[in-house]
């Protein structure tokens, strides 16, 4: 990077300014701006098709954008010269469908990226991977293949896999949407602990109770714009915009 931006922790770690994204003629994000400070947990909620997932997928450059700017630690994500690999080492992502590597055991899933991408030593990585699996309460499952684990267990392996890269920010894209109700809790608990440890998190979620409990700030999106945002209590108890009110009345 020619002009390495100087980022200090008192500036937003992630900053979106007037982000526009379209798929062909369909404009999915119509000018979205938001800031996330280090250690903050923000939740993005909103009806299906409102662009929530697209929004966070733009943050680690899985999707490109047409206009606006996204910075992570002061670095422009959509700069064509950006080293995407460097960005993705800082930004972890967990998906709705877990997307574990089916041909690797839980432990190998967690170890793969640090070994192959960060080229760290095997003994080190293995020790850390074991700790991470213990942290997501999966001791004893190290040698299980994803196909032998429940949805909730797979999702926790996916979280551990992301954490193994030591990211500064974690993105969670509807991580409980595909889970059985009884396994949702264990995944949410893991995320809650992570948030309590000070990990910066952006969550797209439909779990309103969880959002209220864990988030520092809630953003409500509809049809590609942020309709309303605020701290959880204000947001859930004193929503201003009629669209927010309607959504909340339907979902709560």
């Amino acid at each position, binding site marked *: 990077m020619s002009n390495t931006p100087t980022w200090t922790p008192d500036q937003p770690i992630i900053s979106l300014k007037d982000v526009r994204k379209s798929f062909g003629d369909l404009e999915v994000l119509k000018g979205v701006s938001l800031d996330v400070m280090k250690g903050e947990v923000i939740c993005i909620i909103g009806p299906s098709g409102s662009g929530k997932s697209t929004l966070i997928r733009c943050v*680690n450059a*899985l999707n490109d954008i047409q206009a606006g700017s996204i910075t992570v630690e002061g670095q422009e994500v959509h700069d064509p010269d950006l080293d*995407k*690999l*460097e960005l*993705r*080492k800082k*930004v*972890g*992502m967990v*998906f709705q*469908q877990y*997307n*574990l*590597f*089916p*041909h690797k055991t839980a432990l190998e899933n967690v170890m*793969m*990226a640090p070994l*192959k*991408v960060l080229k760290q030593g095997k003994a080190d990585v293995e020790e850390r991977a074991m700790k991470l699996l213990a942290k997501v309460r999966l001791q004893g499952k190290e040698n299980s293949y994803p196909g032998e684990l429940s949805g909730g267990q797979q999702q926790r392996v*996916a979280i551990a*896999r*992301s954490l193994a*890269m030591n990211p500064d920010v974690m993105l969670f894209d509807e991580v409980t949407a595909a889970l059985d109700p009884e396994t949702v809790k264990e995944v949410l608990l893991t995320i809650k602990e992570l948030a309590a440890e000070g990990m910066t998190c952006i969550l797209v979620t439909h779990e309103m109770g969880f959002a209220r409990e864990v988030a520092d700030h809630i953003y409500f999106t509809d049809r590609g714009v942020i309709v309303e945002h605020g701290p959880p209590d204000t947001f859930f108890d004193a929503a201003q915009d009629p669209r927010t009110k309607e959504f909340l009345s339907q979902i709560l």
Partner: protein
Amino acid sequence: MKSKHIPGIHQQNQTDLPVLHSFKRRYRSPSEIGFSEWLAGLPAWVPFLVLLAAAAWPMTALAQGSNYTTGQAFEALLRWIPFLVGSGFFLTIVISFLTMLVGTVLGVFLGLGQISQNRFIAKFCWLVTQTFRNSPWLVLLFIVMLSFPFEITIGDTIIPIPDWIKAVIGLALPIMANISEIVRGAINSVPTAQWEASESLAFTRFQTLFQIILPQCIKRMIPPWMNWYAILTMATPIVSILGVEEVLNLTRQAIEAEDNHPELLVPFYSFVLVIFFIYCYPIARLTVRLERRFAVKL
């Protein structure tokens, strides 16, 4: 109502009630097992029945009114068997091995080229694949046979290129194209979410392909690959047309050496049929078994 299973033919179970069938693709991709399934479905005694029928074949002898008997024909066959197998069928196997080796190496590169992000490379590899997949094998063989030199001169040394090497090149072209499709199809059968997951873990495209995607689909490629090996082996006799001295060519020469008695035809060619069967049948059975096992596993 139970319908009898016909090897190689997939039939829906019959019923009088209206039934909504699940959507099924009519088109069978090259990676699906067709030939091996059919071959493996044959009972093992089928070609031996042919050989038996050949033994009981007195008609021609009667019609010709010659003194040459079926017994003599089989005696002649026994005399020729070591040569036909050791020289002829051995070359058939060498040709099939080398063709498969060359075709696989080139096909893997071509298949990977088809999924290249460089649009020119992808389009080019697609075109090469489609061209050779849709060309008659015999035409490709003729082109290679006639357009390649029979020797290369480097300085003072003349390196001859035997016919069978040219046959290998000619046969390797369609094999290459079909392997290319197997590779492309297998890679595309892995959900794109796998690409995204490894991308977001900062794997490069190359790392993703070789460490995440290919290890997942390599098993899926083995049965169709073996299927093509069986098809290829069965097809090698066409190189006899171009004078390569493989088993079919030598069989014809053997019959001629035995004074061309018509009684020789059935025993000799049945024997060729049987050795091909003995060689390909186990491969087909194994292919179908692997296909079933991998289908359940992943």
